[in-house]
C-alpha cells in the first residue's frame, strides 16, 4: 500500500503555508448562470417541449401560407369535383394518396378512383387534377379549408386560454384564498352558472348575439372558465397555509399582493397545463355554435366545423375527417408538450432533467 506513496512527486514549495490571501470568500457556484439562459437551456434540453414548439410554429406557418398554396380558395365550389379522395403528385406512384378510395356497399367493397376512369376509352377530365387532402361534398378543396379553419381554431384556442387565465384563474384564486363567505358566494355563483347545462345556455345565446368571432369569444367566456377556476381554487387551498405566505403576511402584504405575487407564480405552471385542456373544449364549443348559427359564417369554417361536417361522411368518405382531425391533434399535442416544457423550464426548483 505504501508503494503509491513512492510515486508521489512533491514540488519544493508544496509544504508551505499559503496564507490567508488565497482563501476564497465569495462562492461562485451560480454566478455564471443567468436566469434566462438557464430557462432556455432547460427548455431546449426537453425534447418534447422543442417538438411542441416546432409543431406550433409549423402549424402557424401553415395557417398563414397554407391557404394560398394550392391556388384555390376555401369557398370555391366545383360541383363536378365533389367527394374526391386525396391525391398527391409523387406519392400517388407509391399507391397512397392516389385518389382512390374503398366503398363498402351491400354487395361488398369496391375500389374506385374518381380521377381516372377505369374505362380507358373515357376521360374524366380530372387526370391532371390534384387535391392533396381531397374535396368535400361541394367540391371544395379540403387542404385550403383546413388551413383557413386552423386560423380560426388558433384564434379560439387563444381566446380560451385568455379567458381561462384572465377570468377562471382570478376567480379561483380569490375564491380559494379568501375562503369562508367569499368562497361560498363565488362558488354558489359558479354553481348556478354551471348548474344549467351548457347546451341550454348556449342555445339561448342565439337570441342575444349575432354570429361571428365576438359571439364565439363571449360564448367561451361565459362557460369556459369554470374548470380552470376550480383547479386554481384547489391549488390555492393547498398553498395558502405555507410558510412563505405567512412570511408575506407578517410583512403586511395585502391579500391581493399575496394572491398574485406570491401564490400565482407557484401554481402558474399547473394552470398553464390545465388551460391547455380547455382548448379542445373551446374548439368544439365553436363547432356547436356554428351548428346553431353563432359560429363563423359558412362557407368559412373552423377545424371544429370541418370535423363535425366531415363526420357526416365518416363511413362513406373517411378521408374528409382525417386531415382536420390530424391537424387538430397536432395542435393539441404541440401545445401540451410545450406547456409541459414551459412549466418545467420556468420552475426554478426543477433541478432534475
Amino acid at each position, binding site marked *: 500500500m505504501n508503494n503509491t506513496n513512492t510515486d508521489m512527486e512533491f514540488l519544493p514549495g508544496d509544504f508551505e503555508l499559503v496564507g490567508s490571501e488565497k482563501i476564497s470568500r465569495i462562492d461562485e457556484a451560480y454566478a455564471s448562470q443567468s436566469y434566462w439562459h438557464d430557462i432556455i437551456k432547460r427548455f431546449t434540453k426537453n425534447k418534447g417541449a422543442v417538438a411542441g414548439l416546432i409543431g406550433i410554429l409549423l402549424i402557424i406557418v401553415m395557417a398563414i401560407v397554407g391557404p394560398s398554396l394550392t391556388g384555390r380558395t376555401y369557398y370555391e365550389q366545383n360541383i363536378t369535383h365533389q367527394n374526391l379522395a386525396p391525391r398527391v403528385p409523387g406519392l400517388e406512384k407509391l399507391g397512397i394518396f392516389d385518389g382512390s378510395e374503398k366503398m363498402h356497399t351491400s354487395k361488398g367493397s369496391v375500389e374506385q378512383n374518381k380521377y381516372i376512369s377505369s374505362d380507358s376509352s373515357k376521360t374524366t377530365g380530372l387526370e391532371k387534377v390534384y387535391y392533396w387532402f381531397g374535396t368535400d361534398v361541394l367540391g371544395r378543396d379540403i387542404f385550403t379549408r383546413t388551413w383557413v379553419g386552423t386560423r380560426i381554431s388558433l384564434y379560439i384556442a387563444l381566446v380560451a386560454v385568455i379567458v381561462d387565465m384572465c377570468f377562471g384563474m382570478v376567480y379561483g384564486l380569490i375564491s380559494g384564498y379568501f375562503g369562508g363567505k367569499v368562497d361560498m358566494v363565488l362558488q354558489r355563483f359558479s354553481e348556478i352558472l354551471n348548474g*344549467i*347545462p351548457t347546451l341550454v345556455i348556449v342555445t339561448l345565446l342565439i337570441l342575444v348575439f349575432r354570429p361571428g368571432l365576438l359571439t364565439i369569444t363571449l360564448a367561451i367566456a361565459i362557460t369556459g372558465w369554470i374548470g380552470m377556476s376550480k383547479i386554481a381554487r*384547489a391549488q390555492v387551498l393547498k398553498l395558502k397555509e405555507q410558510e412563505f405566505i405567512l412570511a408575506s403576511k407578517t410583512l403586511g402584504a395585502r391579500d391581493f399582493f399575496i394572491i398574485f405575487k406570491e401564490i400565482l407564480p407557484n401554481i402558474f405552471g399547473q394552470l398553464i397545463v390545465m388551460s391547455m385542456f380547455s382548448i379542445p373544449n373551446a374548439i368544439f364549443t365553436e363547432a356547436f355554435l356554428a351548428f346553431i348559427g353563432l359560429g363563423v359564417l359558412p362557407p368559412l369554417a373552423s377545424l371544429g366545423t370541418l*370535423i363535425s361536417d366531415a363526420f357526416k361522411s365518416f363511413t362513406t368518405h373517411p378521408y374528409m375527417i382525417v386531415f382536420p382531425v390530424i391537424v387538430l391533434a397536432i395542435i393539441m399535442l404541440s401545445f401540451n408538450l410545450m406547456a409541459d416544457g414551459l412549466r418545467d423550464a420556468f420552475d426554478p426548483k426543477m433541478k432534475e432533467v
Partner: protein
Amino acid sequence: MKKYILKRVAISIVTLIVILLVLFLMLQFMPGSPFNDEKLTAAQKAILNKKYGLDKPMFIRFINYIKAMLSGDFGVSYTISKNTPITSLLQTRLPISLRLGGQAILIGTAIGLILGLIAAIKHNTIYDTITTIISVLGVSLPSYVFAMALSYGLGFRLKWFPILYDAKNPFDSSVIPTISLCMFTIATVARFTRTEMLEVLGSDYMLLAESKGINSFRLIFRHALRNALIPIITVLAPLVVGLMTGSLVIEKLFSIPGIGSLLVSAIQSNDYNVVVALTFIYSLMYIGIMLVVDILYGVIDPRIRLVKGDGNE
C-alpha cells in the same frame, strides 16, 4: 363539520331554486313555443297555451311549478311525448344514463389513474410519452369520432359488440358507448394524475414511506395517491355530472334512450317541462357532487379547511 354540511345543503337548496328561476326566465326568451309548428294558427296556439297554463305570467308559473315539484310532479311533456308525465319519462330514461355514465366514469377513472400512475412512475420514458399522447388525443378528438370509429371497427367489421343499445342486453350493447364515453375521462384523469403524482413522488414523505419497506402497491395507493387526489377529483367532478346525466352525442349515435338525447330534443322542440326537469336533475347532481367534492377536499387532505375557525379558535 356537520354544521358546515347542513349549512351547505341549505344553501344548495337555495342555489337550486335560483337555478330554476334563472331557467324559467331564460326559457321565457327561448325562440318559439312548444307549439311552434308552422301549421298552427295563432288561435290554436292560444288554446294550447291556455291548456298548459303557459299563458300565465312567468312568476306564477314558477311558483306553481315549484309547488308541484315538491309533490313530485314535474308536469307533462308538450311535444316529445305528448301529455306524458315527465316523471314516467325519467323513470325509464334516467337509470339508463346513470348506469352508462357510471360505467364510463368508473372505467375511465380507473384506466386514467393507472395510465397516469404509470406515466409518473416511469417518468421521462416511452411509457410517459405514450400516455401523454393518449391523453392529448383523448381530449382533442371529439367523442363522436371515437364512437363512430368504434362502432365501425368493433361493431360493424368485427361484430364483437352490437352497434345499437339494446335494453334487453344492456351489458354487451353498452360496451362501445362506454368506451367512447370514457376516453375523455381517461385522458383527463391520466394527465392530472401524472402531474400531481410527479410532485408527490418527489416528496419527503414518500421517501419515508419507501424507507419503511412497504411494497410499491401500498406506496402508490396508500401513500401517494391520496395526496394527488385533490386536483383529480376537481376535474373529475364535472365529468361525473356530465356523463351521468347522459352524453348528448353518444346517446344519439347509439340510440340510447337516456336523458341526454332527451334534453337535446326538448330544447329543440321547446318542451319546457322536460328542459326544466332535466336541468333540475343536472343541477341537483352538479351541486350535490360539488358539495361532495368540497367535503372530500377536507377528508382527503386534512390540512384543507374550508371553514374559517374550524380548528382555529
